[in-house]
């Protein structure tokens, strides 16, 4: 059954030429007749589906539209045209720790981050010590985040984000977090989550990871699908390019 369905999705950014970032400039430019609107097409006619317990990787150079596509899937960016349908809960692992606040304690941040992801806070509260322990920051959970090292922040974010199983997992380059020890640990947990039946969309430049983890792959170029198919085939073609 298709958990993610994307049909003829187009995303167009409307950009003011000369980037009138202020009302003053816009006013001046429109008087001079210089304010021109240009449509920048970020995604062109994208269609695909992802089934339950299927892992799909998205490949492509910087600026090919990978992040835009993930934003559309996450429901953050509404497509200009086309349909995006996702059934079930989404765990967006796009930028870990989005919404973390320096002045709040570790425990408060775990709660807040979970609330942003729409989780049940009662169970999160009960789980908080375990989340801190898994991240290896148990002793720090009562202190403000600004006293954490950046590695500790990343570990806590990863631990929180992966604490609950979601039906849809959107992963953007978060396979490697922290030091070597934690990386093995996080990789193992990530693989566990991926293999546990969720529909996964994965953006990565790590072609070995894509080969081993993904069933299918989509190659994006300049906002359109250049190739879609079995992961190993697409990676071969992408690497030959």
């Amino acid at each position, binding site marked *: 059954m298709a958990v993610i369905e994307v049909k003829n999705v187009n995303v167009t950014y409307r950009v003011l030429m000369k980037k009138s970032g*202020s*009302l003053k400039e816009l006013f001046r430019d429109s008087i001079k007749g210089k304010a021109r609107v240009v449509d920048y097409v970020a995604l062109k006619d994208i269609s695909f589906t992802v089934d339950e317990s299927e892992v799909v990787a998205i490949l492509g150079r910087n600026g090919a539209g990978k992040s835009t596509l993930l934003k559309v899937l996450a429901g953050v960016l509404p497509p200009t045209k086309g349909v995006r349908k996702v059934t079930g809960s*989404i765990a967006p692992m796009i930028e870990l720790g989005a919404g973390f606040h320096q002045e709040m304690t570790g425990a408060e941040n775990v709660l807040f981050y979970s609330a*942003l992801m*729409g989780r049940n806070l009662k169970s999160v509260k009960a789980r908080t010590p375990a989340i801190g322990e898994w991240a290896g920051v148990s002793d720090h959970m009562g202190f403000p985040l600004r006293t954490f090292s950046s590695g500790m922040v990343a570990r806590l974010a990863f631990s929180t984000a992966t604490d609950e199983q979601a039906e849809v997992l959107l992963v953007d380059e978060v396979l490697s977090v922290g030091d070597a020890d934690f990386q093995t640990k996080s990789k193992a947990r990530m693989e566990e989550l991926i293999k546990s039946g969720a529909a996964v969309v994965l953006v990565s430049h790590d072609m070995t990871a894509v080969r081993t983890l993904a069933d299918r792959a989509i190659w994006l170029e300049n906002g359109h699908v250049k190739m879609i198919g079995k992961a190993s085939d697409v990676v071969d073609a992408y690497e030959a390019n």
Partner: protein
Amino acid sequence: MKYLPLIRLLVNRELTLRYKRSVIGIGWTLLNPVLTSAVLWYVFSFVFASRLPNGQQFGPYLMAGILLNTFFGQGLMQSADSIASNGGVLTKIYVPPQVFAISSALAGLTNFFIGLLPLAVVCYISGQPLAWTLPLVLVIGVLLAFLVAGLGLTLSILFIRFDDSRNIVSILLLILMYLTPIFYPVSIMNSTMQNIIHWNPITSYLDIFRWAFSNNATPTLFSWVYIFTWSILALLLGTYIFKKYWPRTVAML
């Protein structure tokens, strides 16, 4: 409402974070209006206190004005800013962006309600008894929160799209503040100015608030109709405008 717990956390965060590193913490919320009022009272009481109608005290008059104006002005700027400043979250995790603007308005409302305590003390000291209409203050607070949230949602679109709109709005708010009888009685103005002040919606909110709290003003039926109209229209229009322009605005975050 799946996002109610998040709203609670956001309101809490906004209330506690501002004074997190200070010794008395949230005590500042109590102290802030008192100190501001004390300064303005010292400066203006010589000029304006005697001009108030009989039976109205300048202390509560001034402090009520400051409380309500802080709620409106600060609440509006924070609400309008909230969506842009949480852009990092909004472009990664799906959360209805309105949640942030509503939370800011609610934080302003909570601050306003906390400020009623020192206001009651000032009323007591100056011999201006609290009125039996006191519970109506809840209604006024909620109506003003509607106005703040509605205008905040509209402005948040503008703030994201145009960098200088923030400055323009804060200047407009300053002008609006002077067109609100916060520290002066309306009677000292000439008739043209009185007319302008009369049509300033904040004047109506303030009149009703002063009257409801300690019978320190005389609002008319017009004031009631006016604030209901403004609050409800602002909320409806604000949510509509936001919904309409958000899909094109989110790309600019």
